[in-house]
């Protein structure tokens, strides 16, 4: 009886340790959250938003984006100053420092997806390949969801 409870105790402790270690390890070195494309009608460019979390201990840089659903994708930032708005192309990409998270969100960083090759619908999935420097593999295919233009 004593032996059985001893064995049980060891099993429980081991299971606990394994669960704890699993919990400590980040699932992915690079985590892309909430990827979405805001649908704009009439052939005008659309914005893509998401967050990038860099779980590695060195900086990574988003340098490119491309999608078969669009003719051209650019990395842009909206700048508002003195009551005027303009867009700035991110020539050198976007740096995500070690352990940091960068948000692509309305009125800031966004993907500008131009020249839709087909008519998109709300709820549809669109693959976008994000290209990085400082991490292997360099290309990450991310599934974006098409959301209404009135969503944030």
């Amino acid at each position, binding site marked *: 009886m004593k032996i059985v409870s001893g064995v049980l105790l060891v099993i429980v402790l081991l299971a606990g340790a394994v669960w704890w270690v699993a919990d400590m390890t980040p699932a992915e070195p690079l985590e892309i959250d909430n990827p979405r494309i*805001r*649908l704009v009608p*009439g052939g*005008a460019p659309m914005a893509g938003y998401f967050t990038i979390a860099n779980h590695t201990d060195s900086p990574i840089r988003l340098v490119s984006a491309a999608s078969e659903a669009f003719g051209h994708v650019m990395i*842009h930032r909206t700048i508002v100053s003195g009551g005027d708005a303009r867009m700035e192309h991110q020539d050198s990409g976007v740096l995500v420092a070690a352990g940091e998270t960068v948000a692509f969100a*309305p009125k800031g960083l966004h993907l500008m997806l131009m020249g839709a090759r087909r008519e998109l619908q709300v709820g549809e999935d669109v693959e976008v390949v994000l290209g990085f420097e400082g991490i292997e593999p360099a290309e990450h295919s991310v599934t974006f969801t098409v959301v209404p233009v*009135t969503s944030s």
Partner: protein
Amino acid sequence: MNPRRIALIAALLLGLTACGDESWHGKSIEGLMPELEFELTAESGETVTESVFAGRPVALYFGFTHCPDICPTTLARLVAAARRLPEPLREELQLAFVSVDPQRDGPRQLSDYTDAFSDRMVGLTGSQRQLKAFTRRYRTTYGYEEERSDGSYNVSHSSAIFVFDASGEPRLMLLDSLGVAEIAADLERLLSREARNADNA
């Protein structure tokens, strides 16, 4: 100076600024700019003037349809705020989107775009001469950046929503930093005051 004192002073200063502006969330432009007046082309293709709003209050935004980020963000907030207005104020308010990019924003493009936000939003654009006259009148500017190899180009424009009352007087500038609740509060306050004045008249 300790952080708590700095915070207190900051709060007081913010409070004072708000009081100075009659506690609008936006910026009051009452008496600072001329009344609404323009000649532009509507999304129907017709040439229209300010009389197209038929004496209703208007919330107007300058932008362009090839603007994927700030334009839809601002228009969506405006539409959400307008939806929060109590009846009959909601029916009163007219929404207008003025494209400063007539080269790409023809009537069809404009009407597809504004319909995506609200059936009560009218799209307007015009010649460079008309657009310059209109934007100058409200002390704002727009400009075009260099064309890219694919022929696309960026446009800079005002980031604020201009609100005019039923008589075409400029009343508020709603800055892009305002959220839906703040825009709705300002619109409701302005429009209910308008409604009261109309009842008394």
